[in-house]
């Protein structure tokens, strides 16, 4: 640092502008989101007021159910069970799907052979896989999680196959010359290059998996959010159905906000800095 004065000048000038526009860039979408949610809430209250019906409860009634079930511990229990299934199915689908996808992306002949299988599995309805899994493997936890994972695996395979095709051979050659070990290759060469594809697969994965988990629970489990919704469906208790749904959506959004986005920001930190 030969000229600290000049240097400081550059940094302050450089950060002052983005900071101001940065705050605005965060505040404006946040306000828009809040206004949008408030609008939905008002519309719902108004509609429930205008057409009072047991099948269409106002927000206050849903909140009451949410509060009571949370206090009794019932809601947290079922949410936890469902979240556990989502997590298990997610991990299984991502690991197996990534391995298959990368192998297919790297080996062209294998890809040509297995591609019809992938297309077939992509197009089997989730319900069919769930029903078959319960028939073949019984109404148990492994069948439930396996069925959800099998639904998701073809999607992961397709995304990760694209990722493996886009691998840059120059990094692999560099690693070969400098004799990287297999673990170093995985950690420093392969995974960083696949990171955008892993991120894409996991984002769409979480969204898909939690919806399928509810169906699995509805069809063959005796706990979880899906089972609760089925139970309240039989009682035509719409307030409870909405309470469980909203609670679960809120949890999934929180996970996205507090877990997925920070992890992604950390993984792409080398990208965002200007050259």
């Amino acid at each position, binding site marked *: *640092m030969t000229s600290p004065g000049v240097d400081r000048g550059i940094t302050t000038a450089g950060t002052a502008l983005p900071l101001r526009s940065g705050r605005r860039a965060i505040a404006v979408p946040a306000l828009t989101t809040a206004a949008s949610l408030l609008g939905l809430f008002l519309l719902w209250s108004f509609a429930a007021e205008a057409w009072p019906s047991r099948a269409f409860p106002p927000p206050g009634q849903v909140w009451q159910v949410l509060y009571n079930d949370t206090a009794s511990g019932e809601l947290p229990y079922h949410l936890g069970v469902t979240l556990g299934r989502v997590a298990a199915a997610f991990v299984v689908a991502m690991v197996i799907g990534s391995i298959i996808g990368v192998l297919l992306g790297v080996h062209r002949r294998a890809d040509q052979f297995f591609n019809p299988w992938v297309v077939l599995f992509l197009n089997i309805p989730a319900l069919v896989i769930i029903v078959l899994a319960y028939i073949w493997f019984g109404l148990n936890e492994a069948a439930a999680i396996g069925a959800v994972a099998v639904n998701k695996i073809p999607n992961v395979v397709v995304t990760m196959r694209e990722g493996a095709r886009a691998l840059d051979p*120059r*990094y692999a*050659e*560099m690693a*070969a*010359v*400098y*004799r*990287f*070990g297999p673990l*170093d290759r995985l950690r*420093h*060469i392969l995974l*960083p290059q696949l*990171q955008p594809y892993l991120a894409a697969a996991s984002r769409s994965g979480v969204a898909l998996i939690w919806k399928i988990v509810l169906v699995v629970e509805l069809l063959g489990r005796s706990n979880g959010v899906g089972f609760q919704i089925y139970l309240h469906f039989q009682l035509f208790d719409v307030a409870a159905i909405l309470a469980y749904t909203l609670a679960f959506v809120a949890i999934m959004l929180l996970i996205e906000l507090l877990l997925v986005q920070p992890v992604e920001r950390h993984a792409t930190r*080398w*990208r965002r*800095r*200007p*050259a």
Partner: protein
Amino acid sequence: MQPVGVAVPLRVDIAEKTFRSAEGVPVTALHDLSFEVRQGEFACLLGPSGCGKTTTLRILLGLDTDFSGSFQLPQGGSNRIAVVFQEPTLLPWRTVEQNVRLALPKGMRNAKLDWLFDSLGLAGMRSLFPSELSLGLARRAALARAFATEPAVLFLDEPFVSLDEQTAERLRYLLLEVWSARPTTALMVTHNLREALMLSDRIIVLSPRPAHVLGVFDVRLPRHYRNRQVMSDLLRSFHEKFPHAA
């Protein structure tokens, strides 16, 4: 078996290397290519663009095994080879320092590399990501990675191409400085005759494709004597010996 302590040269003896073009037509890239680089010597592989210099290097690096012939790499030190590619080929998701250390064997990962970063002018940039470096600085980081491994042989594939002449010249001096501190057998591919005359102990002159060795030009003068006057004399005698090359 070589007796212990005897310097093993880099010996290359490639009978033939052919490519298949997209239409399946065989193209001979190398034919009867043989040369030797003595232990601790800095040699240049000089030839016109597209003559097969990089192909030769890829064979020596073990990245291309589909050829007939043989070669022998120098032994000693860490018994490793190091390379500076045409592109810096730094991992964009790792810092400069991580890039350098990852190339080291597990036991050497924590070695002190201050002298290396200092002499290449990278001392303040160890924690930067490659995207924050200019091409010239990225090239220096690639040089640092190559020298950090203390290789038994160092390969350089036109490491100063597509830089402005001033930056390239500075990097050449930096390369000489670091190399002189720890001389290792080095083979650099280039089509720049001036660069070759400035850096090397011997220049191996290749023919156009299919490449074979036209001859060897030894520069015995120590590098610090190679001033402008001497360089033009060297150029003249090179052109007398190889009137059609470069």
